[in-house]
């Protein structure tokens, strides 16, 4: 398998006065292309901080980060922005859509920052919106959509640039179980089509829809194992 992400001795320290907090404490891990990984842990365990560093939203205090074989520790803010734009898709717990814009306009945002010509944008957007089954809602303002639909728009936005990896931070956290199931189903579908996906969650049933679970506690990896029986959401539905 081809390594997509490799981190070695990753540390993130927050200093407040004299006290030091190790949000991420000497973590080393590898994520291969095509994997579906859950990062689980109680709140305050450092899983979100880890995801932010892996997603190039934040920088580690120390340790090495190789993305796609390249060491990116020394990259400038602008270069990191380019990686986020082209190689990474994000799905957030709070959707983070711009409510006054339409579905299409929200999905299009990464393409705008990539400077892709308008004609090409539309085809790419339509494909992404089709994939999450919102073709008939293209022109809707996202404020008028249900939570589940909003998260599907967010997924479409995450995949529109055909990124190497998708990070989903508690993607079902703001959804009822039925909508949550639909979102997970889409993520599984995308994984089956070859997308690399990382979910951050504190709920076991969400974690189990992945194929590998990394548990984090106090900034360290507690366990890292393959899921024996992946919960196939489309068949098993979700049992809380």
């Amino acid at each position, binding site marked *: 398998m081809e390594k997509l992400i490799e981190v070695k001795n990753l540390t993130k320290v927050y200093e407040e006065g004299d006290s030091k907090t190790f949000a991420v404490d000497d973590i080393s891990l590898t994520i291969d292309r095509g994997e579906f990984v859950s990062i689980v842990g109680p709140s305050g365990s450092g899983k979100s901080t880890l995801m*932010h560093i892996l*997603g190039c*939203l*934040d920088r580690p205090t120390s340790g090495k980060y190789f993305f796609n074989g390249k060491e990116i520790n020394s990259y400038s*803010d*602008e270069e990191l*922005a*380019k990686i*986020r*734009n*082209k190689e990474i898709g*994000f799905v*957030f717990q709070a959707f*983070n859509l*711009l409510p*006054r*814009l339409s579905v299409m306009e929200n999905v299009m*945002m*990464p393409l*705008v*920052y*990539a*400077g892709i010509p308008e004609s090409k944008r539309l085809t790419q957007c339509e494909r992404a919106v089709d994939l999450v089954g919102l073709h008939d809602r293209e022109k809707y303002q996202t404020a008028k959509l249900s939570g589940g639909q909003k998260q599907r728009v967010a997924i479409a*936005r995450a995949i529109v*640039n055909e990124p190497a990896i998708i990070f989903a931070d508690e993607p079902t956290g703001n959804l009822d179980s039925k909508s949550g199931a639909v979102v997970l189903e889409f993520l599984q579908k995308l994984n089956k089509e070859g997308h690399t996906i990382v979910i951050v969650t504190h709920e076991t049933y969400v974690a189990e829809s992945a194929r590998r679970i990394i548990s984090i506690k106090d900034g360290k990896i507690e366990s890292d194992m393959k899921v024996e029986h992946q919960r196939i959401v489309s068949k098993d539905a979700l049992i809380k």
Partner: protein
Amino acid sequence: MKTKDTLKIAVEGLTTHKSRTMLTILGIVIGIASIMLVMSIGQSAQNLILGQIQSFGPTLVSVHPGRRPQSLAGFTGVLFNDSLKQRDVDTLAQKTNVPDAVRIAPYVFTSTPVSFGSESYTTFVMGSSQDVFNSFHLDVAQGVALTDSDVASRSSVAVIGQKLANELFGANNPIGQNIKVKNKNFRVIGVLAPKGQMVSLNWDEIVLTPYSSLQQYVLGIHYFNEISVEASSLATVPTVIADITRVLRQNHNITDPTKDDFYIQTQEDAANTVSSITDILTLLLTSVAAISLVVGGIGIMNIMLVSVTERTREIGLRKSLGATDKNILVQFLTEAIMLTLAGGIIGIILGTSLGLAITYMIDKFGGLSFPYSFSLSGAILGVIVSSVIGLAFGIFPARQASQKSPIEALRYE
């Protein structure tokens, strides 16, 4: 990122809070409108005055007593300087001395009460020869004009303006009646046709008498306040000026040109003097209006800071999707410039409309021909200044926005 997208995002940002946007740009609108108004009215006034000066005839050259005034207050000195005498008029009138002069006319002025019976009116009294009627294209509506024999015989006669005739005589015929100019009797022989205001002179309220009578009976002087010389053509104006200077220096025994006790003014000089005065006034008023632009700019900065705080999450989101610091900076800066530029354009339209309205009113009710002149320099200045204000007051909020860390921005509640 493409410019078109930046503009689109900025428009979206601004249209979210329409009423807030409108109120924010009000300061800029008022500032630019006042600048526009001041500049166009200033220009209209200047055009009006210059037009009137030009109507005196560009070939007119006027000789004044004393030194050339260096300031506005210096003009009063002209009235009390006695260097221009009858002898000067006579020598200038000799064809051999100033061959290119077609007309020589001396003037004396005073401002004094003029009365008929119990009616009294303080007005401008001008002592002149018959040339005044040709030089200023004056028509006599009733009675006759002054003649050179009136001057020669020092007759106590007067031609008066239309409005003054109405004030003093009402519906009665003024011809043949005696009016008192500073207690001396002058017989009214003519009434001017309405002519209106010309620069500072209102022909409808004037009293015209032979200069010799005004000098002797009223003022008790033997000098002139001005000698007007008309050159044969525009091309001979410089020769005429040179001739006059030579003749007067000779008459007054002056060898050192810095000691001249007279100065010569062309209509061009007069126009330049007026232009410099109106320019200074316009500049002064414009700078007062400019203060409101600074206030407006601070308002823009304030609202932009609020907007940046409000949209912290949006900034975080855009950054997570690949927006660079520069993208965010440019976006907020574009919003600020769009705000002020819109304010500027509305201000220009408002200022122009107000200017049109005011000039229309002056024209209609003020009895002055006051054509509106659109100040192109004001409009260009307005556009530039408002954009610069957007840039200057938008850069600080935009930098704040661009420097937000994506994580902290996303977490912001």
